[in-house]
């Protein structure tokens, strides 16, 4: 079928297939920023275009239907790489973060402003109702529109974008715009899918229909005959290498309990065979023709089933220890079925895989028994969190090619160096043969800390020599990717009548699913990022993680902390209620302050003894008081909704970390180009959060140079030095500090070189804006461009290059408090989130506008986990809600009616220019804050995620 239409005002003609979607036609025509995040579900809006001036989902339109139509795509908004007012306003408002949907959002906002010159909040909400934003929440989209309206009307912004911090600094703590913002918002090539070469192969997976089964045989004979099939990889021909998917420190605190393909499948959706083919259709056909004979086994899905006597072992393989081998291992390994494979422990995790225990940890301070005896009241409660999916808009993807005999991976990853190490191990090649290029990451949220697609993609290319694309569907994200661990958290807490807590005991039982990636550290985090909030002498924790046959788990923003926080804060609030003391007073009475020695940390290291340190800079109390004032704690709320609605308030105090002191390490290089501009090569992996912008700002600040003249190259294992990666809230603190040190070292080299060239004493020289050296003694100046020209002229001392390396045992702990006000309809159970206030101490927010948006985004994610999201498995272990609509992520309609993020002014001693981490902590408050508010409104303490209308009504005994 031939169709004629205009695309971005240019007449075009296409021959299209009947079933071809408009999006497919547009992508083939080069409009690759018309993306697909939902497999044609008509939900996420990544595929938004205008047809005859109306926004539509291009995936739901057949190309054959647009004959004669005018089509506008997001890349058609700007001409000649010139940002439009709307695009610039989006960058300035801080909402262009991981940005997979930013071009589509820019199109929608431009469409809106073309129709309405000064839209209301309701009109903006309406325009954005069909686009899913996971990274930045939606709140600052309103700000972006306001800025654009002001710019159009007056030529400049009148509204302050974000508060400024550190008056003495020029760039740090000020709004500036993300350095990769223009590329992302205009829809330029940025993501892995934008790098594909024509003719690349596709890798697709045949996945297990069973939650637990041995693979007796796989017959690929017929499948291999399909034209275009290049290779089929199975357990019978893949490398016999055990590894694990978590990109963590080396040696990893996780067992190596999987191969590329295993003889036993351990969850519905587990890999059975990988088909490399020249077309997706050929791969699909081959998958259909593969014959597999399974020996189906009894699965276990819950912690209770896994720990039951006689439960089948999910990982019954032979245990192998690389260090710290326990006594009696040979006897323990007796009778292991070889089809179970092996479990290789880099060091002991106190596991018992025969009984499904993947890891365990225990610790205590003081005397908990005595503490409970001293209490006037003791309560013990058990809380259950659900399995939730990270849902990055860009599903997991990898594109691998052979280049000059080396394996090059275009990856959407948080951990380029761990990825290189793990892939090299899987392919059994040295690391110098692997080149990882971290492209822009369209949302990670922890899930891209795991090596979930890159291992198979890389191996497929290595053995075939063909370029290979492996791109998950949305459904695969649910049943074959990492998710948040379901946890059962039991909290026992005792307190005196005045609210002073005498003892806390936490028992965490975590469900790691089929593999043990993060099995120790996520559950420990439930304790290590919550118990240190309390100034309590007697505390004890027990953490046990179980293997089961649910879809895989892993890292998710907040790690284990949201679950621990939920249990601990809910328990404290209920105890306060029973004691008749004010919950806020109780929190203030028991929360830590600067200087308090955190003895509890001794037992909370990640597989080793933790560092006992005093509380450093701490805005916790200030956050609680600020939030209390904002939400008018203690004052009866006005109920304008009628008698069927009950209003309640709640809050939670929260903390996280800034990377992993003693484990993380970051490095950066700073060099001066021959015109005096600066190139920073950072190991840090910017996953959309603005880490590259931090590197630019700290470099500009130190070297007194305009940010325009600083470029960051990051996350490329060939051109940047080592960094452990972007996880555990390490980016600002570790990678930022590495860039800062590199800049400081380059400054020293500039001064030394200038001293020689200017024939001055180095101690008399200063760097001065904009990019020159000045003598305080003689007043002489030397521009960087002249300095470097001389240095590189053939008679000088060569290019100025400096390294920065950062590792520390010091902690920079972010603190905060999140407050919620809910209205609950006591007839239908509906819950309305009327207010949500996130108050946080992030040290010096280097990018304040981006920091605020990350708080909004993280808070909205955790609101989703608290109220809506939960993966549901049927009795066979099939995830039956593996789509956005069925799963239920929060969109703009679910935003709190009054949503505020507030950054406190706290200066940390160890962070770069006083900065601490920002976004992970913001996932920790919503569940307890909302849970407490619901209890305040209805008297119902909901002990399981999500807090549904039905649970409220059941708690009230309505049916």
């Amino acid at each position: 079928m031939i169709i004629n239409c205009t695309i971005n005002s240019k007449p075009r003609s296409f021959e299209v297939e009947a079933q071809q979607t408009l999006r497919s036609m547009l992508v083939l025509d080069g409009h690759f920023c018309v993306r697909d995040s939902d497999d044609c579900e008509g939900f996420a809006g990544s595929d938004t275009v205008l047809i005859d001036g109306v926004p539509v989902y291009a995936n739901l339109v057949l190309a054959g239907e647009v004959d004669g139509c005018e089509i506008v795509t997001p890349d058609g908004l700007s001409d000649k790489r010139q940002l439009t007012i709307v695009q610039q306003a989006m960058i300035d408002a801080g909402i262009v973060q991981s940005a997979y949907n930013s071009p589509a959002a820019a199109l929608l906002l431009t469409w809106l402003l073309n129709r309405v010159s000064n839209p209301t909040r309701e009109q903006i909400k309406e325009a954005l109702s069909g686009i899913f934003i996971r990274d930045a929440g939606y709140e600052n989209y309103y700000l972006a529109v306001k800025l654009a309206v002001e710019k159009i009307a007056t030529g400049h912004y009148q509204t302050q974008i974000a508060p400024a911090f550190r008056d003495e600094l020029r760039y740090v703590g000020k709004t500036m715009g993300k350095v990769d913002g223009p590329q992302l918002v205009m829809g330029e090539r940025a993501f892995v899918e934008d790098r594909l070469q024509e003719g690349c192969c596709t890798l697709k997976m045949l996945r297990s229909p069973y939650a637990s089964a041995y693979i007796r045989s796989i017959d690929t004979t017929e499948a291999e005959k399909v034209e275009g099939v290049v290779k089929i990889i199975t357990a019978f021909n893949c490398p016999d290498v055990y590894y694990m998917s978590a990109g963590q420190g080396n040696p990893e605190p996780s067992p190596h309990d999987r191969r590329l393909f295993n003889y036993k499948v351990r969850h519905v959706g587990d890999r059975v065979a990988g088909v490399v083919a020249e077309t997706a259709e050929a791969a699909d056909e081959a998958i259909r023709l593969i014959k597999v004979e399974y020996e189906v086994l009894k699965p276990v899905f819950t912690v209770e089933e896994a720990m039951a006597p006689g439960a089948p072992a999910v990982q019954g393989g032979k245990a192998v220890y690389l260090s710290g081998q326990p006594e009696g291992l040979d006897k323990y390994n007796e009778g292991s079925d070889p089809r179970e494979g092996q479990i290789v422990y880099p060091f002991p995790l106190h596991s018992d895989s025969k009984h499904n225990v993947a890891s365990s940890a225990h610790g205590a301070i003081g005397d908990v028994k005595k503490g409970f005896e001293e209490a006037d009241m003791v309560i013990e409660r058990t809380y259950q969190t659900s399995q939730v999916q990270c849902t990055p808009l860009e599903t997991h993807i990898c594109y691998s090619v052979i280049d000059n005999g080396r394996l090059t991976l275009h990856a959407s990853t948080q951990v380029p160096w761990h990825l290189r190490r793990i892939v090299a191990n899987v392919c059994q090649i040295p690391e110098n043969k692997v080149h990882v290029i971290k492209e822009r990451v369209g949302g990670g949220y922890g899930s891209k800390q795991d090596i979930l697609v890159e291992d198979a993609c890389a191996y497929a290319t290595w053995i075939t020599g063909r370029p290979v694309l492996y791109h998950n569907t949305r459904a695969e994200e649910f049943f074959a990717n990492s998710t948040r661990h379901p946890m059962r958290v039991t909290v026992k807490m005792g307190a005196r009548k005045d609210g002073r807590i005498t003892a806390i005991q936490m028992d965490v039982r975590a469900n790691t699913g089929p593999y043990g990636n993060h099995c120790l550290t996520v559950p420990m985090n439930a304790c290590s990022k919550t118990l240190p909030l309390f100034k309590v002498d007697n505390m004890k924790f027990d953490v046990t993680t179980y293997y089961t046959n649910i879809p895989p788990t892993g890292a998710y923003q907040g790690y284990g902390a949201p679950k621990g926080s939920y249990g601990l804060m809910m328990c404290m609030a209920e105890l306060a209620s029973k004691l008749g003391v004010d919950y806020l007073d109780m929190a203030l009475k028991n929360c830590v302050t600067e200087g308090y020695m955190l003895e509890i940390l001794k037992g909370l290291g990640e597989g080793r003894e933790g560092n006992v340190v005093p509380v450093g800079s701490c805005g916790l109390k200030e956050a609680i008081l600020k939030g209390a004032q904002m939400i008018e704690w203690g004052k009866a709320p006005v109920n304008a909704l009628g008698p069927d609605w009950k209003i309640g308030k709640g809050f939670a105090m929260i903390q996280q970390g800034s990377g992993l002191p003693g484990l993380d390490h970051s490095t950066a290089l700073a060099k001066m180009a021959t015109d005096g501009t600066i190139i920073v090569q950072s190991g840090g992996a910017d996953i959309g959060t603005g880490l590259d912008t931090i590197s630019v700002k700290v470099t500009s600040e130190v070297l007194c140079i305009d940010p325009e003249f600083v470029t960051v190259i990051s996350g490329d294992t060939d051109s940047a030095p080592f960094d452990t990666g972007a996880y555990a809230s390490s980016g600002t603190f570790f990678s930022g500090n590495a860039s800062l040190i590199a800049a400081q070292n380059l400054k020293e080299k500039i001064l030394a070189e200038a001293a020689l060239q200017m024939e001055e004493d180095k101690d008399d020289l200063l760097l001065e804006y904009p990019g020159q050296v000045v003598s305080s003694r003689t007043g002489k100046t030397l521009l960087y461009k002249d300095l470097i020209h001389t240095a590189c002229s053939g008679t000088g001392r060569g290019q100025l290059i400096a390294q920065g390396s950062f590792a520390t045992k010091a902690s920079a702990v972010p603190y905060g408090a999140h407050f919620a006000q809910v209205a609950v309809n006591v007839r239908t159970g509906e819950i309305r989130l009327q207010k949500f206030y996130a108050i946080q101490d992030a040290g010096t927010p280097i990018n304040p506008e981006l920091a605020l948006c990350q708080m909004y985004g993280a808070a909205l994610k955790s609101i989703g986990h608290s109220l809506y999201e939960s993966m549901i498995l049927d009795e066979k272990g099939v995830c039956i809600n593996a789509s956005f609509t069925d799963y239920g992520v929060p969109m703009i309609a679910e935003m709190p009616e009054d949503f505020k993020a507030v950054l406190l002014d706290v200066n940390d001693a160890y962070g770069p220019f006083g900065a601490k981490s920002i976004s992970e902590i913001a996932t920790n408050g919503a569940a307890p804050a909302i849970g407490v508010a619901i209890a305040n409104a209805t008297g119902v303490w909901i002990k399981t995620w999500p807090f549904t209308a039905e649970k409220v009504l059941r708690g009230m005994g309505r049916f």
Partner: protein
Amino acid sequence: MIQKLTIAQSIAQAVNWKAHCADCIYLSGGTEVNRLGSEDHQEGISIGRLNMDEIRMEGSMLAIGATVTFTEALESDLVPMGLKQALRHMDSMTKRNMATIGGNIAAKRDDSYIIPALVAMDAKLSVMDLDRSQSQMSLWDYVSDPYSSRLLIIDILLDPKARIASRRISRTAQSHASITMSISLDPALACAAIKGTGIVRLEGVEKAIAKGLGGKDLERIGSEEPCQVVDDIHASAAYKRYLLGILAADLAGGLR
């Protein structure tokens, strides 16, 4: 997904093609037929260019063309508020720009956004059968007819003065609704889309409303409607039953 697309240039042509192809499907806005998880069809007959996108008065009745989109209906001064309330149950503006009234009726979703409202408004459909005979039928009859996909909906006809109230209960604005219910007092009409069950006429509620009952009586009668209600991923059967009663009582109470 469809395997072949034909663009009809006239209503007669569309019907003629359909008459010769049992597996063909009329393709309107595309939000159902082209969506993830939709059924495979041999051929899609696009009816987007048949000028069935007009909203007009025909005597005392409002006629809404089958390919009028949700957005177009919302922007029309002729469309009554009761229907507009139901149209807004589809929360995504982008989807509302594409979804058509006729297409959503034909889809007969068990969490239909608009069928309960249209049933409560006692709406009629102007349809064309495979033999090109044109007739009017009640929307409820269309919904109840398992073979109605053969019919091409041309217009939706309703009384613009019809006064109804609707509620949709879902976990998020874009999740599938557990219950969408609409009620009219005069005439006494009540209809619910119950996820996992389908579109249900609430006859007990209708009789109770006709008798002037409300409050606890309607709660009880609504929750005891003799339809099969099932547990699903969105809500338990018990909660849905409870809601049937609560919503019936609240909607009727609100209209009174």
